[in-house]
């Protein structure tokens, strides 16, 4: 009776005289009712059972969603601890040197900091949120650039953005490119050859747009 793989009980082994068991009906449902099996599709009892199985699946998911809704919100202490834990693993990326005037001193900025700079610059455009940001190119000019000699290397910055449809998308994208470019010029010595902006998403504003000067 407990042997695996067998459905037990006579009622489950032949639904409505179709010759199909409850398990076979479930498999049919998981397959998206394809390829069509006329014996099942034309049998009222099978159809009722399929609907019922489908509903029970949906209901199971709803149950978890309802549990989630009924649960108290996220414990802020727990969240703070979690963020402290993950914050220890910083995505610093490559070190990018600044030209140093003193041979004993090495100045670097991490790739992660530059990504953050790019992100902040993009975000500062009203109605724009930056998604990914990647920096392609030779960041350290090749070899050990610790001797105060930064080669003329160029980089390409690519970012994806989500926009609020408050202004034409091209205007927003252009504003992002300009803002990112000027921030990179201001804070780094990188030679930016291109800034590629891809609009990947649209979001709604839940709060008023921050007035920014």
């Amino acid at each position, binding site marked *: *009776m*407990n042997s*695996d*793989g067998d*459905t*037990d*009980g006579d009622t*489950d082994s032949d639904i409505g005289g179709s010759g199909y068991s*409850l398990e076979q009906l*479930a498999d049919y449902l998981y397959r998206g009712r394809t390829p069509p099996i006329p014996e099942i599709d034309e049998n009222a009892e099978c159809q009722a059972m399929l609907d*019922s199985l489908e*509903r*029970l699946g949906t*209901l*199971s998911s*709803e*149950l*978890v*969603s*309802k*549990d*989630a809704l009924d*649960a108290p*919100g*996220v414990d802020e202490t727990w969240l703070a601890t979690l*963020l402290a834990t*993950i914050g220890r693993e910083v*995505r*610093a990326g490559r070190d990018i040197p600044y030209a*140093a005037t*003193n041979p*004993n*001193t*090495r*100045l670097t*900025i*991490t790739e*992660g*900091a530059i*990504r*953050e*700079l790019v*992100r*902040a610059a993009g*975000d500062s455009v009203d109605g724009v*949120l*930056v*998604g990914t940001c990647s920096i392609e190119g030779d960041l350290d000019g090749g070899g050990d650039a610790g001797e105060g000699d930064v080669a003329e290397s160029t980089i390409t910055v690519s970012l*994806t953005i*989500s926009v609020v449809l408050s202004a034409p998308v091209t205007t927003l994208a252009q504003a992002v490119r300009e803002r990112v470019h000027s921030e990179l010029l201001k*804070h*780094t*010595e990188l030679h930016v050859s291109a800034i590629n902006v891809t609009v*990947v998403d649209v*979001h*709604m*504003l*839940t*709060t008023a747009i*921050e007035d920014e000067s």
Partner: protein
Amino acid sequence: MAPDVSLVLRFVCYRLDADSAAIVTVATQFFSTLIPEGMMGALESASDAILAARSADGDTLAFAILVRRHAPYLRAFAIRLTGSSADADDAVQEALISAWGALPTLEDFSKVRAWLLSILSRKATDRIRQRKPSAELDEERAEDVELGPEQRAIATSRLDALSAVLERLPEGQKQCWVLKEVGGYSYEEIATELGMTPQTVRGKLARARATVVREMEEWR
């Protein structure tokens, strides 16, 4: 906006003993202190894909919002799966920590919720396997579950009724049901997660299905 970083750095170097070699690095966290107040609100309206992408780039604020958005569902799923809120909490925590580390490898950021759920399923089933080394225990229990009339009467809604039926299923059957119907995993995937053969999973699901269908009949 941000102060000029290279100027700040030069100033720092000027103040350092010029004869000693110094390495000064601007670390990633430098700019996070400069996030304007309104950013939080804007980020809360961002899609999962944007938040996941930013998290992959190291934005902890975006990750916090992602966690706040999905943690309740993840926890509810883990509780249904493991039947223990302590195990569920541990599994959710572990899952989110490893998700943070693995986010840069996620290919489709818009599927972050399903991805989180799959990591959580692994963490939760790890706990299940640890606490019960042999799934055979299940076989010794009554495999058929029938609710008494008084238990049926308690349920005031379909959801309550289903909840009661699932709670009364033998653990292995319940786990298979939750992974299949809520997680949407295949027999093979469930088998791997729970350390069973696909045939065992098939058998447990068949029994769980028969019970759930029978007990839920009056709620059709």
